[in-house]
Protein backbone atom coordinates (compact mmCIF):
# COMPACT_ATOMS: atom_id res chain seq x y z
CA UNK A 1 0.00 0.00 0.00
CA UNK A 2 2.77 2.44 0.96
CA UNK A 3 4.57 1.85 -2.31
CA UNK A 4 3.06 5.17 -3.39
CA UNK A 5 5.31 7.16 -1.00
CA UNK A 6 8.53 6.65 -2.99
CA UNK A 7 6.48 7.49 -6.08
CA UNK A 8 5.26 10.72 -4.43
CA UNK A 9 8.83 11.65 -3.43
CA UNK A 10 10.05 10.96 -6.98
CA UNK A 11 7.27 13.06 -8.55
CA UNK A 12 7.94 15.86 -6.02
CA UNK A 13 11.65 15.75 -6.85
CA UNK A 14 10.82 15.86 -10.56
CA UNK A 15 8.60 18.93 -10.02
CA UNK A 16 11.33 20.70 -8.04
CA UNK A 17 13.89 19.77 -10.71
CA UNK A 18 11.85 21.23 -13.61
CA UNK A 19 13.88 24.49 -13.81
CA UNK A 20 17.14 22.48 -13.65
CA UNK A 21 16.17 20.14 -16.49
CA UNK A 22 14.80 22.93 -18.70
CA UNK A 23 16.85 24.88 -21.20
CA UNK A 24 18.16 27.91 -19.37
CA UNK A 25 16.38 30.15 -21.86
CA UNK A 26 13.02 28.61 -20.93
CA UNK A 27 12.74 29.10 -17.17
CA UNK A 28 9.31 27.86 -16.00
CA UNK A 29 8.14 27.54 -19.60
CA UNK A 30 8.77 31.17 -20.62
CA UNK A 31 11.15 31.96 -23.50
CA UNK A 32 13.75 34.54 -22.49
CA UNK A 33 16.91 35.73 -24.26
CA UNK A 34 20.04 34.12 -22.84
CA UNK A 35 21.19 37.50 -21.51
CA UNK A 36 18.04 37.60 -19.34
CA UNK A 37 18.18 34.03 -18.06
CA UNK A 38 19.79 35.12 -14.77
CA UNK A 39 17.54 38.15 -14.34
CA UNK A 40 16.36 38.76 -10.76
CA UNK A 41 12.71 38.23 -11.78
CA UNK A 42 13.60 34.86 -13.27
CA UNK A 43 15.65 33.56 -10.35
CA UNK A 44 13.06 34.75 -7.82
CA UNK A 45 10.21 33.05 -9.71
CA UNK A 46 12.18 29.79 -9.91
CA UNK A 47 13.00 29.90 -6.20
CA UNK A 48 9.35 30.53 -5.29
CA UNK A 49 8.19 27.66 -7.52
CA UNK A 50 10.71 25.24 -6.03
CA UNK A 51 9.86 26.05 -2.41
CA UNK A 52 6.12 25.67 -3.04
CA UNK A 53 6.78 22.30 -4.72
CA UNK A 54 8.88 21.14 -1.74
CA UNK A 55 6.08 22.17 0.64
CA UNK A 56 3.47 20.41 -1.51
CA UNK A 57 5.53 17.22 -1.61
CA UNK A 58 6.00 17.16 2.16
CA UNK A 59 2.28 17.79 2.64
CA UNK A 60 1.44 14.96 0.24
CA UNK A 61 3.78 12.50 1.95
CA UNK A 62 2.30 13.37 5.37
CA UNK A 63 -1.25 13.17 4.06
CA UNK A 64 -0.59 9.87 2.35
CA UNK A 65 0.95 8.45 5.53
CA UNK A 66 -1.87 9.72 7.73
CA UNK A 67 -4.55 8.18 5.49
CA UNK A 68 -2.63 4.98 4.69
CA UNK A 69 -5.46 2.85 6.12
CA UNK A 70 -7.86 4.06 3.41
CA UNK A 71 -7.70 1.90 0.29
CA UNK A 72 -6.38 3.82 -2.72
CA UNK A 73 -5.67 7.07 -0.86
CA UNK A 74 -2.00 7.04 -1.93
CA UNK A 75 -2.96 7.24 -5.59
CA UNK A 76 -5.29 10.16 -4.92
CA UNK A 77 -2.59 12.05 -3.01
CA UNK A 78 -0.17 11.44 -5.88
CA UNK A 79 -2.70 12.71 -8.39
CA UNK A 80 -3.32 15.77 -6.19
CA UNK A 81 0.42 16.51 -6.05
CA UNK A 82 0.69 16.40 -9.85
CA UNK A 83 -2.32 18.71 -10.33
CA UNK A 84 -1.11 21.18 -7.66
CA UNK A 85 2.42 21.07 -9.10
CA UNK A 86 1.10 21.99 -12.54
CA UNK A 87 -0.97 24.79 -11.01
CA UNK A 88 2.09 26.11 -9.14
CA UNK A 89 4.09 26.03 -12.38
CA UNK A 90 1.43 28.00 -14.26
CA UNK A 91 1.20 30.69 -11.56
CA UNK A 92 4.93 30.98 -10.75
CA UNK A 93 5.83 31.80 -14.35
CA UNK A 94 3.54 34.84 -14.55
CA UNK A 95 6.04 37.39 -13.10
CA UNK A 96 8.54 36.41 -15.82
CA UNK A 97 5.86 36.76 -18.52
CA UNK A 98 4.93 40.24 -17.24
CA UNK A 99 8.55 41.42 -16.92
CA UNK A 100 9.38 40.14 -20.39
CA UNK A 101 6.42 41.93 -21.91
CA UNK A 102 7.04 45.18 -20.02
CA UNK A 103 10.76 45.25 -20.80
CA UNK A 104 10.49 44.04 -24.45
CA UNK A 105 13.25 41.55 -23.71
CA UNK A 106 13.45 40.26 -27.29
CA UNK A 107 13.67 43.66 -28.96
CA UNK A 108 16.79 43.79 -31.13
CA UNK A 109 17.88 40.28 -30.15
CA UNK A 110 18.98 38.18 -33.19
CA UNK A 111 17.21 34.82 -33.30
CA UNK A 112 17.57 31.71 -35.46
CA UNK A 113 16.19 28.20 -35.66
CA UNK A 114 18.19 25.44 -37.31
CA UNK A 115 17.56 22.02 -38.81
CA UNK A 116 19.52 19.20 -40.38
CA UNK A 117 18.99 19.38 -44.14
CA UNK A 118 20.65 16.18 -45.32
CA UNK A 119 21.07 12.76 -43.73
CA UNK A 120 21.27 13.12 -39.99
CA UNK A 121 23.12 11.04 -37.46
CA UNK A 122 21.09 10.27 -34.36
CA UNK A 123 21.55 7.78 -31.56
CA UNK A 124 20.59 4.28 -32.63
CA UNK A 125 17.97 2.31 -30.73
CA UNK A 126 19.27 -0.20 -28.17
CA UNK A 127 18.17 -3.12 -30.32
CA UNK A 128 19.52 -5.77 -27.92
CA UNK A 129 17.20 -4.49 -25.17
CA UNK A 130 14.19 -4.38 -27.51
CA UNK A 131 14.94 -7.92 -28.71
CA UNK A 132 15.10 -9.04 -25.07
CA UNK A 133 11.73 -7.34 -24.38
CA UNK A 134 10.13 -9.06 -27.36
CA UNK A 135 11.59 -12.41 -26.27
CA UNK A 136 10.19 -11.96 -22.75
CA UNK A 137 6.82 -10.93 -24.16
CA UNK A 138 6.80 -13.97 -26.42
CA UNK A 139 7.66 -16.16 -23.42
CA UNK A 140 4.71 -14.54 -21.64
CA UNK A 141 2.47 -15.89 -24.36
CA UNK A 142 4.07 -19.30 -24.73
CA UNK A 143 4.17 -20.16 -21.01
CA UNK A 144 0.43 -19.68 -20.22
CA UNK A 145 -0.49 -21.29 -23.55
CA UNK A 146 1.66 -24.35 -22.82
CA UNK A 147 0.41 -24.64 -19.26
CA UNK A 148 -3.20 -23.62 -19.75
CA UNK A 149 -4.41 -26.83 -18.14
CA UNK A 150 -2.59 -25.94 -14.91
CA UNK A 151 -3.98 -22.39 -14.70
CA UNK A 152 -6.33 -21.82 -11.77
CA UNK A 153 -10.02 -22.19 -12.49
CA UNK A 154 -11.71 -19.82 -11.78
CA UNK A 155 -9.06 -17.45 -13.13
CA UNK A 156 -8.03 -14.11 -11.45
CA UNK A 157 -9.67 -11.40 -13.57
CA UNK A 158 -9.02 -8.24 -11.54
CA UNK A 159 -6.54 -7.08 -8.93
CA UNK A 160 -6.56 -4.17 -6.49
CA UNK A 161 -3.78 -1.59 -6.13
CA UNK A 162 -1.84 -3.93 -3.81
CA UNK A 163 -1.87 -6.69 -6.42
CA UNK A 164 -4.40 -8.93 -4.63
CA UNK A 165 -7.06 -10.64 -6.70
CA UNK A 166 -10.50 -9.06 -6.21
CA UNK A 167 -12.47 -10.81 -8.98
CA UNK A 168 -12.41 -14.30 -10.35
CA UNK A 169 -13.99 -15.71 -13.50
CA UNK A 170 -14.02 -18.60 -15.93
CA UNK A 171 -10.75 -19.64 -17.56
CA UNK A 172 -11.21 -19.05 -21.25
CA UNK A 173 -8.25 -18.73 -23.61
CA UNK A 174 -8.97 -15.09 -24.29
CA UNK A 175 -8.74 -14.06 -20.64
CA UNK A 176 -5.48 -15.91 -20.03
CA UNK A 177 -3.90 -14.48 -23.16
CA UNK A 178 -5.10 -10.85 -22.96
CA UNK A 179 -2.30 -9.46 -20.75
CA UNK A 180 0.51 -11.34 -22.59
CA UNK A 181 -0.87 -10.22 -25.97
CA UNK A 182 -1.06 -6.57 -24.88
CA UNK A 183 2.48 -6.89 -23.47
CA UNK A 184 3.77 -8.14 -26.81
CA UNK A 185 2.09 -5.25 -28.65
CA UNK A 186 3.55 -2.73 -26.17
CA UNK A 187 7.06 -4.24 -26.49
CA UNK A 188 6.80 -4.06 -30.27
CA UNK A 189 5.45 -0.49 -29.93
CA UNK A 190 8.53 0.58 -27.94
CA UNK A 191 10.79 -0.82 -30.68
CA UNK A 192 8.81 0.97 -33.41
CA UNK A 193 8.91 4.28 -31.47
CA UNK A 194 12.69 3.91 -30.96
CA UNK A 195 13.11 3.42 -34.71
CA UNK A 196 10.70 6.25 -35.63
CA UNK A 197 12.65 8.71 -33.44
CA UNK A 198 15.79 8.11 -35.49
CA UNK A 199 13.85 9.25 -38.59
CA UNK A 200 12.76 12.55 -37.05
CA UNK A 201 14.24 15.97 -37.70
CA UNK A 202 14.02 18.11 -34.61
CA UNK A 203 14.59 21.86 -34.40
CA UNK A 204 18.05 23.00 -33.34
CA UNK A 205 17.49 25.89 -30.94
CA UNK A 206 20.82 27.71 -30.60
CA UNK A 207 20.21 29.46 -27.25
CA UNK A 208 23.26 31.57 -28.03
CA UNK A 209 25.61 28.67 -28.76
CA UNK A 210 25.15 26.39 -31.79
CA UNK A 211 27.83 23.94 -30.71
CA UNK A 212 26.28 23.49 -27.27
CA UNK A 213 22.81 23.16 -28.78
CA UNK A 214 24.04 20.35 -31.02
CA UNK A 215 25.77 18.65 -28.14
CA UNK A 216 22.60 18.82 -26.01
CA UNK A 217 20.52 17.48 -28.90
CA UNK A 218 22.87 14.50 -29.36
CA UNK A 219 22.94 13.77 -25.66
CA UNK A 220 19.15 14.03 -25.45
CA UNK A 221 18.82 11.64 -28.38
CA UNK A 222 21.03 9.05 -26.63
CA UNK A 223 19.18 9.45 -23.34
CA UNK A 224 15.80 8.97 -25.04
CA UNK A 225 16.92 5.73 -26.69
CA UNK A 226 18.34 4.33 -23.45
CA UNK A 227 15.21 5.33 -21.52
CA UNK A 228 12.95 3.72 -24.14
CA UNK A 229 14.93 0.50 -23.96
CA UNK A 230 14.83 0.51 -20.15
CA UNK A 231 11.09 1.21 -19.96
CA UNK A 232 10.47 -1.49 -22.56
CA UNK A 233 12.43 -4.12 -20.60
CA UNK A 234 11.01 -3.22 -17.18
CA UNK A 235 7.44 -2.85 -18.49
CA UNK A 236 7.60 -6.15 -20.36
CA UNK A 237 9.11 -8.05 -17.43
CA UNK A 238 6.52 -6.62 -15.00
CA UNK A 239 3.55 -7.29 -17.30
CA UNK A 240 4.78 -10.78 -18.16
CA UNK A 241 5.23 -11.51 -14.47
CA UNK A 242 1.65 -10.40 -13.92
CA UNK A 243 0.53 -12.75 -16.69
CA UNK A 244 2.30 -15.78 -15.27
CA UNK A 245 1.59 -15.15 -11.57
CA UNK A 246 -1.54 -17.34 -11.66
CA UNK A 247 0.81 -20.21 -12.45
CA UNK A 248 2.91 -19.46 -9.38
CA UNK A 249 -0.04 -19.32 -6.95
CA UNK A 250 1.71 -16.45 -5.26
CA UNK A 251 1.43 -15.32 -1.64
CA UNK A 252 0.52 -11.75 -0.63
CA UNK A 253 4.12 -11.16 0.46
CA UNK A 254 5.43 -12.22 -2.94
CA UNK A 255 3.03 -9.83 -4.70
CA UNK A 256 4.02 -7.00 -2.30
CA UNK A 257 7.72 -7.62 -2.93
CA UNK A 258 7.09 -7.69 -6.68
CA UNK A 259 5.21 -4.37 -6.56
CA UNK A 260 7.96 -2.71 -4.51
CA UNK A 261 10.64 -4.01 -6.87
CA UNK A 262 8.60 -2.87 -9.88
CA UNK A 263 8.05 0.61 -8.41
CA UNK A 264 11.74 1.02 -7.65
CA UNK A 265 12.66 -0.26 -11.12
CA UNK A 266 10.35 2.28 -12.71
CA UNK A 267 11.73 5.08 -10.51
CA UNK A 268 15.33 4.39 -11.55
CA UNK A 269 14.97 5.73 -15.12
CA UNK A 270 12.98 8.74 -13.85
CA UNK A 271 15.76 9.69 -11.44
CA UNK A 272 18.40 8.92 -14.06
CA UNK A 273 16.65 11.03 -16.71
CA UNK A 274 16.41 13.98 -14.31
CA UNK A 275 20.06 13.64 -13.23
CA UNK A 276 21.45 13.32 -16.76
CA UNK A 277 19.37 16.20 -18.12
CA UNK A 278 20.15 18.48 -15.16
CA UNK A 279 23.87 17.74 -15.60
CA UNK A 280 23.77 18.53 -19.32
CA UNK A 281 21.85 21.77 -18.73
CA UNK A 282 24.26 22.72 -15.93
CA UNK A 283 27.19 22.39 -18.37
CA UNK A 284 25.35 24.77 -20.72
CA UNK A 285 24.88 27.27 -17.90
CA UNK A 286 28.54 27.08 -16.91
CA UNK A 287 29.64 28.09 -20.42
CA UNK A 288 27.04 30.86 -20.75
CA UNK A 289 29.58 33.69 -20.56
CA UNK A 290 31.34 32.70 -23.80
CA UNK A 291 28.18 32.58 -25.95
CA UNK A 292 27.87 34.89 -28.92
CA UNK A 293 25.61 33.04 -31.40
CA UNK A 294 21.94 33.96 -32.03
CA UNK A 295 19.22 33.27 -29.49
CA UNK A 296 16.35 30.86 -30.02
CA UNK A 297 13.07 32.44 -31.15
CA UNK A 298 10.48 33.50 -28.59
CA UNK A 299 8.01 30.63 -29.08
CA UNK A 300 5.76 31.28 -26.07
CA UNK A 301 2.79 31.72 -28.41
CA UNK A 302 3.15 28.04 -29.36
CA UNK A 303 3.20 26.79 -25.76
CA UNK A 304 -0.08 27.18 -23.93
CA UNK A 305 0.43 27.52 -20.15
CA UNK A 306 4.12 27.05 -20.89
CA UNK A 307 3.96 23.28 -21.45
CA UNK A 308 1.20 22.39 -23.97
CA UNK A 309 2.44 22.72 -27.55
CA UNK A 310 -0.23 23.97 -29.95
CA UNK A 311 0.80 24.69 -33.54
CA UNK A 312 -1.63 23.88 -36.34
CA UNK A 313 1.05 24.69 -38.95
CA UNK A 314 3.50 22.11 -37.63
CA UNK A 315 2.88 18.70 -39.29
CA UNK A 316 4.53 16.87 -36.36
CA UNK A 317 2.22 14.96 -34.03
CA UNK A 318 4.98 14.94 -31.40
CA UNK A 319 7.57 17.60 -30.65
CA UNK A 320 10.65 17.66 -28.40
CA UNK A 321 9.72 18.47 -24.82
CA UNK A 322 10.32 21.97 -23.63
CA UNK A 323 11.40 20.73 -20.21
CA UNK A 324 13.50 17.61 -19.84
CA UNK A 325 14.04 15.05 -22.59
CA UNK A 326 11.61 13.12 -24.76
CA UNK A 327 8.61 14.15 -26.80
CA UNK A 328 5.12 15.45 -26.18
CA UNK A 329 1.99 15.73 -28.32
CA UNK A 330 1.23 18.71 -30.52
CA UNK A 331 -2.31 19.75 -29.58
CA UNK A 332 -2.60 21.41 -32.98
CA UNK A 333 -2.30 18.01 -34.68
CA UNK A 334 -5.27 15.61 -34.79
CA UNK A 335 -3.32 12.74 -33.17
CA UNK A 336 -1.76 14.99 -30.55
CA UNK A 337 -5.15 16.50 -29.70
CA UNK A 338 -6.63 13.03 -29.37
CA UNK A 339 -3.92 12.14 -26.84
CA UNK A 340 -4.55 15.33 -24.87
CA UNK A 341 -8.26 14.48 -24.76
CA UNK A 342 -7.80 10.80 -23.93
CA UNK A 343 -5.10 11.27 -21.25
CA UNK A 344 -7.29 13.04 -18.64
CA UNK A 345 -10.18 10.67 -19.36
CA UNK A 346 -7.86 7.67 -18.93
CA UNK A 347 -6.54 9.09 -15.64
CA UNK A 348 -10.09 9.69 -14.39
CA UNK A 349 -11.15 6.16 -15.35
CA UNK A 350 -8.04 4.73 -13.65
CA UNK A 351 -8.80 6.70 -10.47
CA UNK A 352 -12.43 5.59 -10.43
CA UNK A 353 -11.72 1.94 -11.24
CA UNK A 354 -8.51 1.25 -9.32
CA UNK A 355 -8.57 3.77 -6.50
CA UNK A 356 -12.18 4.46 -5.64
CA UNK A 357 -13.19 0.91 -6.52
Amino acid sequence: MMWTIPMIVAVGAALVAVPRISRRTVPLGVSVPQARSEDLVVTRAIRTYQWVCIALTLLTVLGSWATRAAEGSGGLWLLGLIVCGMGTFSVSRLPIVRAKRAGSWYEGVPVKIGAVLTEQRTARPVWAAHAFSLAVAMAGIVIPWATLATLPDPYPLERDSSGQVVRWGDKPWGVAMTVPAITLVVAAGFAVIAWAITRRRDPILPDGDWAKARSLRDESSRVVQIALAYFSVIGTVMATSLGVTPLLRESKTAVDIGLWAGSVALLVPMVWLIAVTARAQARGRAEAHVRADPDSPDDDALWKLGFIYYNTEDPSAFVPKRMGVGYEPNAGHALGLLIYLIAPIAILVAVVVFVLG
Partner: protein
Amino acid sequence: MEIAVDPLSTVPIYQQIRDRIVEAIGDGKLRRGDVLGSVRSMAGAFRINPATVVKAYELLRSEGLVATNAKTGTFVAHDRDGEHPDAAFEGDWSQRLTTVLAEGRARGIGHERILEFCGEICNRLDSGRTTQKEGQ
Protein backbone atom coordinates in the same frame (compact mmCIF):
# COMPACT_ATOMS: atom_id res chain seq x y z
CA MET B 1 24.52 19.52 -43.03
CA GLU B 2 22.47 22.12 -41.21
CA ILE B 3 20.73 25.30 -42.24
CA ALA B 4 19.23 28.02 -40.08
CA VAL B 5 16.46 30.54 -40.68
CA ASP B 6 15.41 33.69 -38.89
CA PRO B 7 11.67 33.54 -38.14
CA LEU B 8 11.56 37.29 -37.47
CA SER B 9 13.28 38.35 -40.68
CA THR B 10 11.43 40.35 -43.31
CA VAL B 11 12.71 37.79 -45.83
CA PRO B 12 10.06 35.07 -46.20
CA ILE B 13 10.98 31.70 -44.67
CA TYR B 14 10.71 29.88 -48.02
CA GLN B 15 13.17 32.37 -49.52
CA GLN B 16 15.56 31.88 -46.60
CA ILE B 17 15.43 28.09 -47.01
CA ARG B 18 16.05 28.48 -50.75
CA ASP B 19 18.95 30.90 -50.14
CA ARG B 20 20.61 28.66 -47.53
CA ILE B 21 20.43 25.66 -49.87
CA VAL B 22 21.87 27.68 -52.77
CA GLU B 23 24.71 28.84 -50.49
CA ALA B 24 25.35 25.24 -49.39
CA ILE B 25 25.56 24.14 -53.03
CA GLY B 26 27.73 27.15 -53.85
CA ASP B 27 30.30 26.44 -51.16
CA GLY B 28 30.40 22.72 -51.90
CA LYS B 29 28.65 21.52 -48.74
CA LEU B 30 25.92 20.02 -50.90
CA ARG B 31 26.96 17.89 -53.86
CA ARG B 32 25.01 16.53 -56.78
CA GLY B 33 22.93 13.57 -55.63
CA ASP B 34 22.71 14.61 -51.96
CA VAL B 35 19.21 13.91 -50.69
CA LEU B 36 17.43 16.75 -48.90
CA GLY B 37 15.07 16.26 -45.96
CA SER B 38 11.45 15.48 -46.84
CA VAL B 39 8.95 18.33 -46.89
CA ARG B 40 7.19 17.10 -43.74
CA SER B 41 10.38 16.51 -41.78
CA MET B 42 11.82 19.92 -42.69
CA ALA B 43 8.51 21.62 -41.88
CA GLY B 44 8.46 19.82 -38.52
CA ALA B 45 12.04 20.85 -37.78
CA PHE B 46 11.32 24.53 -38.53
CA ARG B 47 7.79 24.30 -37.01
CA ILE B 48 6.28 25.73 -40.16
CA ASN B 49 3.59 24.82 -42.64
CA PRO B 50 4.75 22.15 -45.13
CA ALA B 51 3.55 24.44 -47.95
CA THR B 52 6.44 26.81 -47.09
CA VAL B 53 9.02 24.06 -47.63
CA VAL B 54 7.21 22.97 -50.80
CA LYS B 55 7.50 26.54 -52.07
CA ALA B 56 11.24 26.64 -51.36
CA TYR B 57 11.82 23.28 -53.06
CA GLU B 58 9.64 24.31 -56.03
CA LEU B 59 11.71 27.45 -56.46
CA LEU B 60 14.94 25.44 -56.44
CA ARG B 61 13.42 22.93 -58.83
CA SER B 62 12.44 25.70 -61.25
CA GLU B 63 16.05 26.93 -61.10
CA GLY B 64 17.33 23.42 -61.90
CA LEU B 65 19.29 23.11 -58.66
CA VAL B 66 17.23 20.26 -57.23
CA ALA B 67 15.05 17.52 -58.66
CA THR B 68 12.55 15.09 -57.19
CA ASN B 69 11.75 11.48 -57.83
CA ALA B 70 9.37 9.11 -56.10
CA LYS B 71 12.10 6.86 -54.73
CA THR B 72 14.62 9.22 -53.14
CA GLY B 73 12.58 12.39 -52.76
CA THR B 74 14.22 15.77 -53.36
CA PHE B 75 17.93 15.73 -54.19
CA VAL B 76 20.60 18.13 -55.46
CA ALA B 77 20.59 18.06 -59.25
CA HIS B 78 23.34 20.57 -60.01
CA ASP B 79 26.43 21.49 -58.03
CA ARG B 80 29.31 23.90 -58.52
CA ASP B 81 31.28 21.39 -60.56
CA GLY B 82 28.39 20.92 -62.97
CA GLU B 83 28.15 22.17 -66.53
CA HIS B 84 28.48 25.89 -67.25
CA PRO B 85 25.21 27.84 -67.09
CA ASP B 86 23.62 29.15 -70.24
CA ALA B 87 23.80 32.77 -71.37
CA ALA B 88 20.23 33.48 -70.19
CA PHE B 89 21.14 32.57 -66.59
CA GLU B 90 24.34 34.60 -66.72
CA GLY B 91 22.42 37.60 -68.01
CA ASP B 92 19.83 37.37 -65.23
CA TRP B 93 22.46 36.71 -62.55
CA SER B 94 24.54 39.64 -63.79
CA GLN B 95 21.50 41.89 -63.55
CA ARG B 96 20.81 40.86 -59.95
CA LEU B 97 24.49 41.30 -59.05
CA THR B 98 24.43 44.75 -60.63
CA THR B 99 21.54 45.75 -58.38
CA VAL B 100 23.31 44.48 -55.25
CA LEU B 101 26.60 46.22 -56.15
CA ALA B 102 24.78 49.40 -57.12
CA GLU B 103 23.07 49.37 -53.71
CA GLY B 104 26.53 49.34 -52.10
CA ARG B 105 27.78 52.15 -54.30
CA ALA B 106 24.61 54.14 -53.57
CA ARG B 107 25.34 53.77 -49.84
CA GLY B 108 28.88 55.04 -50.35
CA ILE B 109 30.91 51.84 -50.47
CA GLY B 110 33.89 52.48 -52.74
CA HIS B 111 35.13 50.47 -55.70
CA GLU B 112 38.09 48.95 -53.82
CA ARG B 113 35.98 47.95 -50.85
CA ILE B 114 33.44 46.27 -53.13
CA LEU B 115 36.22 44.25 -54.74
CA GLU B 116 37.47 43.30 -51.26
CA PHE B 117 33.99 42.09 -50.32
CA CYS B 118 33.72 40.07 -53.53
CA GLY B 119 37.14 38.50 -52.91
CA GLU B 120 36.25 37.58 -49.32
CA ILE B 121 32.94 36.05 -50.38
CA CYS B 122 34.55 34.04 -53.18
CA ASN B 123 37.24 32.82 -50.76
CA ARG B 124 34.58 31.79 -48.27
CA LEU B 125 32.68 29.90 -50.97
CA ASP B 126 35.85 28.15 -52.14
CA SER B 127 36.79 27.10 -48.63
CA GLY B 128 33.23 26.04 -47.78
CA ARG B 129 32.82 28.44 -44.87
CA THR B 130 29.57 30.12 -45.92
CA THR B 131 26.85 27.87 -44.53
CA GLN B 132 28.69 26.46 -41.53
CA LYS B 133 29.93 29.80 -40.24
CA GLU B 134 27.28 29.94 -37.51
CA GLY B 135 27.99 26.47 -36.28
CA GLN B 136 31.72 26.81 -35.75
